[in-house]
């Protein structure tokens, strides 16, 4: 099979298919791929989807280029509203965001995420940028985890600091998570697509990207992965999806990206 699309383009298409027509989604920094997925979804099966593009405040951005900074003013091009931070935090607390893209410097088996510190908090080996909006895994409807890398230092058995809670500690989760919040439901990395649909909410491989296998993904993951019974290759983008992706990404950032 000749691979006539990049892994980044594949990921954008995979994300798109996971989005629903009634979703209201938000992405933050370093989010070319999810952004492209959102715009692709709007132009295919989810024309009523709304999305916020991070620090720019742009709602339904139609920017003519994929820029590297979410807060970039140019993302307001073609947007319908400039969302103030007050709205963003309100949408996070009230769960109006049905989908929030988040990530971490450590992610564990139950989808707990850490952006604070690797190692001992008081004397960290790596100090991260901070928790930002990760606590909102407990108040938005579905958390989509998006990472740009996949290795055993990122995917660890247990995070050193819980910035955003996944599915560990079911009693606490039941007590403190907002009733409408489902926690992390989807995870996409450069190696594959994952969900958390095991009885105890553990990360489960749903499909692997071209060139990968169950074994190769497991080898890059620092804990024992659950595997979906129907695991297989991540479906390739259709010709129509690829055409739209390349209209959105006129500059070819995703194509170059992998």
């Amino acid at each position, binding site marked *: 099979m000749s691979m006539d699309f990049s892994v980044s383009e594949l990921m954008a298409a995979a994300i798109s298919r996971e989005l629903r027509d009634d979703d209201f989604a938000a992405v933050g*920094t370093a989010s070319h791929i999810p952004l492209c997925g959102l715009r692709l979804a709007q132009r295919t099966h989810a024309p009523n989807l709304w999305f916020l593009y991070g620090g720019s405040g742009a709602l339904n951005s139609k920017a003519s280029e994929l820029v590297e900074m979410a807060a970039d003013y140019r993302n307001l091009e073609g947007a319908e509203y400039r969302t103030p*931070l007050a709205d963003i935090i309100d949408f*996070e607390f009230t769960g109006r965001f049905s989908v929030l893209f988040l990530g971490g410097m450590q992610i564990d088996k139950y989808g707990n995420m850490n952006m604070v510190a690797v190692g001992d908090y008081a004397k960290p*080996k790596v100090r991260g940028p901070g928790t930002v909006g990760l606590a*909102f895994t407990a108040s938005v409807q579905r958390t989509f985890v998006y990472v740009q890398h996949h290795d055993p230092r990122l995917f660890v058995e247990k995070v050193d600091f819980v910035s955003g809670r996944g599915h560990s500690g079911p009693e606490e989760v039941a007590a*403190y*998570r907002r009733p409408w919040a489902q926690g992390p439901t989807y995870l996409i990395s450069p190696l594959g697509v994952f969900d958390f649909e095991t009885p105890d909410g553990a990360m489960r491989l749903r499909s692997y990207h071209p060139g990968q296998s169950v074994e190769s993904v497991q080898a890059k993951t620092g804990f024992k992965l659950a595997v979906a019974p129907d695991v297989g290759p991540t479906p390739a983008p259709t010709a129509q999806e690829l055409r739209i992706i390349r209209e959105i990404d006129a500059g070819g950032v995703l194509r170059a990206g992998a």
Partner: protein
Amino acid sequence: MQRTSKLKSAAEALAHVKDGAKIIAGGVHLSNTPMALVRQLVRQGVRDLEIVPTPATGLWVDLLIAARCVKKVHVSYIGLEFLGLAPNFRRAVEAGEIEISEVDEPTIFHGLRAAASGLPFCVFPPIHLLTDLPKVSPDVYKTITDPFTGEPVVAVPPIQPDVCLVHVAKADIYGNGLSLGGRHMEDIITKASRHVILSAEEIVDTSEFSAAPTQTTIPGVLVHSVVHAPFGAYPGACPGVYNYDRPHLLEYNEFAKSDRTCDYLDAYVRTRNSDDDMIQRIDPARLQALRLDAR
């Protein structure tokens, strides 16, 4: 009698910033940060600042840490956005050289909003009890009982900065300001803070504001000083006016990662008498190319 102008030099406007001041700056990530004012703080050698950043920022904090101006940082997100971690922040925390108040986006936002609104504290649904934040910041997160439902909720304290620095595209000499980009927290932090200093790309006549009062984003009544600072957000972006200078940011990041930010500060900040002086040393063609109207 004549109405009093608030226009000052950066040095005059910042002269009263004392060692140990609790300080905040507007903007988000590499957009609309009042870098000219921050650089002037470095020149003045102010010490022991307590930094209350907006929820997603970094460059200005990293720079002040490198310049040894900082004692404590309230942390939601301190990083360099697409450039990754903030090297001086990272190094200082790993070395235990600065104090941290470990919080997050809603805690800083609502703490500032409580101060802006004159409210004693703010109450969250208990989602933070699912994180490790209350363990490391028990002074910030207090579990109390909702008097209406009997349920546990989490109280967070107000945050009142002493000094607030904000950069805008246009201002008049009475402190009215216009920002063209995203609305982040400028409206809230100017209300929350005791003293507000506005820097502006351009100083315009008040008639520009009174011709379209619905467009004004900062009311002058909240502002104590106005500083004319062309390229005042450089090397970051000023929304609607110019983009960030990517090569300069990469250069900064290289200095910072290799723990040579002092050399950067010597080259660009400390050896310049003022920010005008610094900006004048940047290649004018390069600056011009950043301008959005030049594209």
